[in-house]
Every structure is written in C-alpha cells, then in structure tokens.
C-alpha cells in the first residue's frame, strides 16, 4: 500500500489556511437587517416627509424603543444560550410595582429614595435567579420555567397593587427624568444605550459572554471544554432578570403610575426583535447589536404606521406583512447558508 501523496507534503501543509475566511467584527451578514431598517425609514419618510424625521418624532421613537431595548439585551443573552425567557411581562410588573411602592408615590407607602431603583432591579434579578435555579437544578426547560415565572411575577405585582388606589408618581422629579433630554435625545434612550453598551462588552469581552455563546452552540461540547454550564446559565438569567427589572422601572416612570400590566406586549416585541435581528433561537449565533436593530425595526414600524394614518383595524395585518418582507430582505445575504428551512 503505497502512499504517493507524501511526495508533496510541504506544499500541502501550508495550504490548510488558504480556505479560511477572515473574521470580520461587523459581518456582511448583518447588512440585511441594516438595509431593511433603512428601507423602512426611507419609506416612512417618503410618506410623511414633514413629521417622520422631525426631531420630535425621533425623540418619540427613541423613547418608545428604550424599554424593549433594555429587555432585549437580557433576552438576547438568554436566547444566545439556546434558552428563552417568557417571564419578562410579569417580571416587569413586579419590578415596576416594587419600585413605585418604595419611592415617593400617591399611596405614600415608603420612600427609600434612590434605593427604590435598587429594589426594583433586585426584584427582577431575584426572579431571574429563581427561574435560573429551577431551570438548572431541576432540569426543567426554560420555556416552562419562565412561562411559570411570568405569572409568578404578575402575581407578585397584583398583590403589591392590592385593592387600594393606583399609586401615582408626583409630577416633576424622577417621573420627568426619562423624557428630559441630553444632547437632544431622551434620557430613556441614553439609559438603553448604556445597557446595550454594557451588554455588548459583556458578550464580546467577558468569559460570561463568551461562555454564553459556547453553551448556545453545544452544551455538551461546552461542558467538555470546561465551561461551568449551570453556573453560567444562572448568571445569565440573573442578568436578564435585572435588565427586565430596570425596564419595568423605566416603563413605570414613563407611565407615571404603578400597574401590574406595565410590561404588556413587551414579550412579543422583544422575542420578535431578537429573532428579526438575526439571533438564532437555537442559540450560539447573533448578538446584542442585532437585537437593537430588530427593536428599531419594530418600533419604527409601529410609529410609522400610525404616522402614515393606517387605520388601526388593519395595522396589525399591515405590520405583519411588512415584517415578513423585512425579514426576507434581512435574511437575503445569508440565504445560501439556510439549506434546510424548518
């Protein structure tokens, strides 16, 4: 059994690297999402030239995007692991109620000052930790656990809400903060930018973030590579809970009133945004910045349809159709990778 190949080993050995594609930080693949967002903006601008890109409306869009953006950072981390967090609406309610009842409000419960923010975020993180513990220790799928915690959160919020009068924030003071501007843009948006920046740094530069990607690719391989899978998952759920808690506080501030349903509609918005942005529900691929694009696509769409005077009875149909077109557009650059669609 001769082995003629050994005649030219030296040439072959250097050839191995030839086929590898260089790694770009901003991949060509995300151009689709950027393009889809740009098209949406251009179309809406063409329909509403005087209002859509007015500074007032830009502020409106950025303010409306802030809450889902903050939730989206946490949700992206969870989805990157191949898990899912369905509890966000309940957790937002619980965190929002915990916050408003510990700050100055019309019910006059207690006023812990700035500590109330900590209380709200801690409520979110605690619910995240509890969900994470059940998910990792009792091996219950995240889908089930977080579905349960949606209602646990809502239950806590309802109990805190009680049957007394609606707790309202006094005018001025912290209630006005999200809408005040810095460099012309609302504080709520800057808060979201901060969270996104931290989220991006975490996913790019920290072991927690990189392990999140590793777990999403394959839990077994990650484990055999020395990744503390259960611990990482727990941290991620805690971080996601904290993000959701912060979003609950922000939503409460914007509304100026406590309401257990303060997170209504956020779940669909964020999960859709995560997926539209291009983070795979299977885990391992995607990122925080992509979700940002997804949130903006959805927020711009909602805002643009209202501005364009689309009748509200057909808005959901139109927004669904536009979304599908946008997703096809966004997915175009990597269609060749999608050999199997299911």
């Amino acid at each position, binding site marked *: 059994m001769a082995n003629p190949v050994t005649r030219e080993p030296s040439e072959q050995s250097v050839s191995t690297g030839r086929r590898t594609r260089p790694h770009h930080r901003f991949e060509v693949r995300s151009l689709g999402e950027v393009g889809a967002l740009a098209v949406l903006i251009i179309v809406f601008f063409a329909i509403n030239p005087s209002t859509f890109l007015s500074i007032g409306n830009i502020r*409106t869009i950025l*303010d409306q995007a802030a809450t889902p953006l903050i939730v989206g950072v946490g949700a992206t981390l969870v989805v990157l692991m191949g898990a899912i967090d369905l509890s966000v609406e309940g957790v937002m309610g619980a965190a929002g109620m915990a916050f408003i009842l510990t700050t100055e409000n019309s019910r006059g419960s207690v006023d812990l000052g700035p500590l109330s923010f900590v209380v709200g975020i801690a409520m979110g993180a605690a619910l995240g930790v509890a969900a994470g513990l059940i998910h990792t220790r009792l091996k219950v*799928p995240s889908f089930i656990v977080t579905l349960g915690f949606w209602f646990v959160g809502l239950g806590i919020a309802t109990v805190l809400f009680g049957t007394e009068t*609606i707790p309202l924030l006094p005018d001025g003071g912290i209630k006005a903060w999200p809408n005040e501007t810095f460099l012309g843009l609302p504080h709520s948006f800057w808060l979201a930018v901060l969270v996104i920046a931290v989220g991006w740094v975490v996913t790019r530069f920290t072991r927690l973030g990189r392990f999140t990607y590793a777990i999403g690719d394959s839990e077994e391989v990650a484990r055999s590579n020395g990744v503390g899978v259960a611990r990482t998952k727990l941290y991620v759920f805690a971080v996601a809970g904290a993000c959701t808690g912060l979003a609950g506080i922000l*939503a409460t501030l914007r509304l100026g009133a406590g309401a257990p349903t303060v997170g209504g509609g956020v779940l669909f918005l964020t999960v859709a945004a995560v997926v539209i942005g291009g983070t795979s529900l299977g885990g391992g691929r995607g990122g925080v910045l992509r979700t940002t694009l997804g949130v903006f696509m959805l927020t711009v769409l909602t805002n643009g349809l209202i*501005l364009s005077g689309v009748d*509200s009875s057909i808005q959901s149909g139109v927004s669904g159709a536009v979304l599908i077109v946008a997703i096809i557009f966004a997915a175009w650059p990597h269609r060749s990778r999608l050999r199997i669609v299911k």
Partner: protein
Amino acid sequence: MFRTRSFRKHLVAALAVVVLGVSACSTTTGAGAGGTGGSQAPIANEDLVLVASVINTTNPYMASMIEGAQALGEKLGVEVQIVDSAGSSQTEISKIQAILAQGKKVALMVNTVASSDAPTIVNAVKQAGGYVVIWWNKPDSLEPWDVGNNFVAFQKYSGVESGQCTGRALAESLGGKGNVIGLAGVEDSTTSQTRVAGFEDALKAYPDIKLLEVQSANWDPQQGLSVTQSLLTKYPNQVNGIWAADDAMIIGATNAAKNAGLYNDIKFVSDGLYPPVVDMMSEPNSPIVGETFHRGFMAAAIGLYTAYLAATGEIDPATLPEEKRDSLFKLACVTPTDFQDYTKWDGDVDAWIDTLIENGPWDTEPTPLVGQGPEKLPGT
C-alpha cells in the same frame, strides 16, 4: 418534564376535593327551603352562591366590581365567589363550569371577556339550573326571553351615550373649534365601538371641530401613552383635545402630554371617572373637562342582585317587561364642577347597597334603568 408519580398524586388530590365537595353539598340539599314564594322552586340562602365573574383583577374597574359583589353578599348573607378570567374566555368559561359543577345553586353576574362567550355561559348555567345576568357584552341576537328564566337579564351602560356625553363636553370646552384625536379600546369590542360612534356623532354638531384620527390603544395605559406620543408628533402643535374610550388610556394620554409639556394646553375627556382621574379633576383649572360616572361596584351589585332575586323566586323573569331583561342603565355626565356629587357614592358602598336592596335593581339612584337594548348606533 413532569414526573408521572407526582402528577398522579395531584390528580388524586383534586379528585378527592371534588368528591368531598359534592358529598358535602348533597348532605345540605335536604335542608328546608326558605324562599319567599315565586313561580320557580325557590332556593335557600345556604344553598345559594353568588358568583361574580370579572375579566381580570388588576384593572381598577374590575376591582370595584369585586368590591360591589362582596358588599352585596355580606348584606344578603350569601357566600360570594369571584371568578378571575385573567383576560381569557377559556379561563372564564372553565372556571364558571367548575363552580356550576360544585352543586350549589348559582346566581351569577358575568362581565364577559368577549360577546361570543355569552351563549356558552348561558347554556351552562341553564343546564345547571342557575341564574345569570350578563354585563357589558353579548351578541345582539341572544335575548334573555329566547333562552328562558335562567338567563335573567343583560345589562349595560350605553356606549353611545358615553361617547356623546364626553364628545360634547370636549367640543364645548374648546369653544366649538379645534382639532381632536381619539383613543379607542380593543378594536372588536362593542363597548369601544359604541363609544367611538357616540363620540363621532356628538362632533357632528360642531362643524369647526376636526377629528384628526382615532387610533386603538387596546384599553391599555402603556399603549395609550405611546399612541398619544406618536400622534402628538404626527400633528405637532395641532392637537387641542384628546378623547379616550376609557380612563386607563387617558392616564397614558395625560402622561404623554405631560412628557411633551402640553398637559395644560390640551383638553381631555374620557369614561369611567377612575380615582386617579378624580384626583386630576380636583386640581384647579383641570384640563380634564368631561367624564362619565358609572361604577363597577354598582354594575356588579345590580347584576348580581337581579340574578339573586330570580334565584330566590322573588322575581319571575318570564313576567318582566323586555326593558328589564335587556337593559340600559343611566350614565351620569360629569364635569369638574359637579363630579363630587357622584364620587360621594364611592365613600360608602354599603349605604348604597342598602338603597339598592330597598329600591330594587331598576330604581336605584344614581343609576336607574333608562332604556331597552340592544343599543342602536346613531344614524342606523
């Protein structure tokens, strides 16, 4: 996922509860009936349960309904059960069926999640021999007299009247001139549709009022906030008045206006006079210029009391005039100057319940019976 063993344990426990419940009931059915006469077999208070089914427990209106039901139960000395539908028709129907299966006679007041739930609930109650009054939503074609005595009545406040009342108040406050926007509730809700129709009808009398747009905000304060935000940027410095189909959304709308620094430049009207809105109206020069007053506790107590009277045989639904079986109740139009005449009822629910028991469901101030349903949209 679920371990079969613990699942079985739960099943056994659940069965045990049901069996115990049924046997407990059957032991009491022999007790003497203490009704005060009537055509149907009357039912004693101990064998009766008052059930109030509400859409959720977080909305202030629903909380008020629960309060009314409980106050009535206490006055009548009858057990009260609350059904929380959690916003879902499925939950609502299955919980009501579970209560019907417990064996006691049921006098039921349901604020249906959707109109289409009504036939199912009515049939289930009829089969169990209970008595039901439906509040707010039912299909127009489903009339109590077609079903029989078990579907005692359908009751509601006129949505058209609500819209007309607040629409007029808004137009008047603007001096008959200006641009307004409207926030509707869930798109397919008849309550929202009738209120919007009334609102649009009222504006016909004011040719210089321009209705810029009506958008749905799903009865939700957050959406009320963001829709108002978007509309205010769509019509910069043009919006003079905002109408909302109920107070949950006006809370969002007023906050959006506050955030935009426009709160005092815009007039607001809405329906329901919720406590936070009462606070806003109490402020001097309040921009809340018109509201309607009706209360969840009143609706629930009237509905439940009607069902109770039928269950105990004190009234015979078959002999009632049609307006008492498909009824519209009086809705009070209030302004910043007179709203306190109505909010005084909030302070003493028990006293109001006393007047209800004294005068009967159709003659109690401030909300006597005023007309017969089904409600007609203006112009049809």
